């Protein structure tokens, strides 16, 4: 499907501070987009606004997701429609086992789709299959959500959940932060194996490192709440080498 995500002039604020000042972005099925930019440029705000975090206020613009008005949906429906965020800092939920958490999530989605709850045996089979994808040991399923998980385990757990929920569009918010090279490979490998012509991925990152493993089709630079440059994968390499200053300078020149 073309035009999976259509962001038009999106503006958003946090605690009355304008962070996004008019984002335009189109993501088609089958594509991998990278969003890069210096600290404080609005990368995390953008992903949070898309998934409907209540701490962010949309002040203008529109977002269409698979033909539907994304901004009109509550967060859980955005998830049911196929939007997934791999969190930069996954939270711990004590006392709630991964199995119980995932079963609730899957069955809420099925309820939304008008389907009956998944049979326990099918559910356990699915868990096994998806766990293997990110090499997450069976013992994690009886542990509380993210509780006592190492940094790398938390990120693998995010990709595991992504695999379970089979989203059409996944946003990876700095999934590479805090990962050693082995964990990075496992995570990237998991993401790559979930890629298909029907799904798309937005990778938010500071570094080229992750993009060595998850190859983007298009790279954007976000700066002060706007996308100031869009180009092919070579842009990420250039940024790695030369930093952001030159892009910012060129952008400011063009605005004069």
């Amino acid at each position, binding site marked *: 499907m073309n035009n999976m995500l259509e962001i038009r002039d999106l503006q958003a604020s946090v605690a009355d501070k304008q962070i996004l000042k008019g984002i335009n972005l189109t993501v088609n099925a089958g594509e991998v987009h990278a969003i890069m930019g210096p600290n404080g440029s609005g990368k995390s705000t953008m992903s949070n606004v898309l998934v409907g975090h209540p701490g962010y206020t949309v002040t203008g613009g529109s977002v269409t997701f698979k033909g539907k008005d994304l901004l009109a949906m509550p967060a859980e429906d955005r998830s049911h429609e196929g939007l*997934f965020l791999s969190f930069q800092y996954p939270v711990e939920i004590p006392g709630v086992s991964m199995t119980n*958490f995932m079963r609730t999530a899957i069955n809420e989605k099925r309820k939304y789709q008008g389907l009956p709850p998944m049979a326990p045996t099918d559910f356990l089979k699915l868990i096994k299959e998806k766990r293997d994808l990110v090499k997450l040991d069976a013992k994690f399923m009886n542990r509380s959500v993210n509780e006592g998980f190492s940094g790398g385990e938390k990120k693998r757990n995010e990709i595991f959940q992504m695999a379970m929920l089979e989203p059409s569009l996944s946003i990876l918010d700095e999934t590479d932060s805090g990962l050693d090279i082995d964990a990075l490979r496992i995570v990237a490998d998991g993401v790559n194996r979930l890629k298909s012509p029907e799904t798309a991925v937005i990778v938010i990152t500071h570094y080229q490192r992750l993009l060595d493993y998850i190859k983007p089709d298009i790279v954007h630079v976000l700066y002060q709440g706007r996308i100031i440059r869009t180009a092919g994968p070579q842009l990420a390499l250039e940024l790695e080498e030369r930093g952001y200053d030159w892009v910012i300078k060129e952008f400011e020149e063009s605005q004069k």
Partner: protein
Amino acid sequence: MKETDTDNSLVREISAEKYRYGFTTDVHTDVIDRGLTEDTVRLISERKGEPDWMLEFRLKAFRHWLTMEMPTWPHLTIPEIDYQNISYYADPTVKKQGPKSVDEIDPQVMKTFDKLGIPLEERLALSGGVAVDAVMDSVSVKTTFKQTLAEKGIIFCSMGEAVRNHPDLIRRYLGSVVNYRDNFFAALNSAVFSDGSFVYIPKGVRCPMELSTYFRINASGTGQFERTLIVADDDSYVSYLEGCTAPMRDENQLHAAIVEIVVLDRAEVKYSTVQNWYPGDENGKGGVYNFVTKRGLLKGVDSKLSWTQVETGSAITWKYPSCVLQGDGSQGEFYSVALTNNWQQADTGTKMIHLGRNTKSTIISKGISAGHSQNSYRGLVRVAEKADGARNYSQCDSLLLGDECGAHTFPYMDIKNETAVVEHEATTSKISEDQLFYCNQRGIPMEQAIGLIVNGYAKEVLSKLPMEFAVEAQRLLAVSLENTTG
């Protein structure tokens, strides 16, 4: 996502929760005049056709009560209670004409218990079998499976019946654990108690089914003062469940009960409560005042008593199910989840009194506060001089939803023996907006997310409940917190 830490848009103001037991039953109820004098006590005793010794018991308690004052030490704001403006006896089983017959229960009363999910016809009982004593207002309306139990020598009947049919047991044990002098509400209850349940498990008998009492307040302007006595003789076992609900009324209703448990050599009693009295509305109007004294005497060697409570109802709760560990090697346990929402107040906990040698107690308390509620844990661990080798482990956790509620912990320790090992842990946490949002992003809507997190928090206690009760308790925790988020 630091920006959102200060923004509490999600976890905020409370609005009405759903209380599905708030209906009233239109049944002819014989209610005595409001007010409390010695004549009232005599009238209650007369209505119940009690022997003289029972009346004497009541009068002694009443005279003592007159000299007492309501306790002021709990962390509760209790509006003045006019004890003269309450009716102390309401009987929904009395026909307008003629004497009552147990077999002729008003269909309206039957329907009430049906609606509450408490089948009073044995053929409708839950699989596995639960025997029920159903108490409405001041009177036990029916006790099921009496016959089946009697075959094993088990006595399970209303307190009124026990006074008439088992006077020796009642005279021996009633008031032996909770003396009428114990506290203000214990004295009041001892004077005016109406019905309740009596259980006796003979030596060596393992009770084949769960026993339960279901308390229902229906009539307005009345209080409920029931009394439960459980005696587990040597080497016996029983699991006992208690449930309670009341209609939604604008007035406050008083409930002051006593539960006494006597556990003899090597016997074991499990007592589980799901307390869901009407908690009042979202503005704190109405609701039941629940002032209850529950105590078990672990009299025998190696005896065991375990209290498990899930407290979600009542406007005010004052309750400390306790264990007196007298027999050597006896073990007491207290597992509690107390949830308060809107303007509810709870001051609840336990007392573990170690008297015997090598006695052991465990306290797991989970408080959950939402809305404008105040939730206190108050617990005492006492180890007497001669209680060599006593052990206690206490864990008191508090969970806060929102910024306007309070959680308090008052642990007291009184250790007189050097060999005692006493451990205490306490934590306070909040459901964070980020936890909720994490669930939302995975497709779990707000109310389910709160239910999931709260049940996760309370898991350790819920796992101690019998299966059907645990399911009900889980649902109740989720429902009681509905609309706690914006």
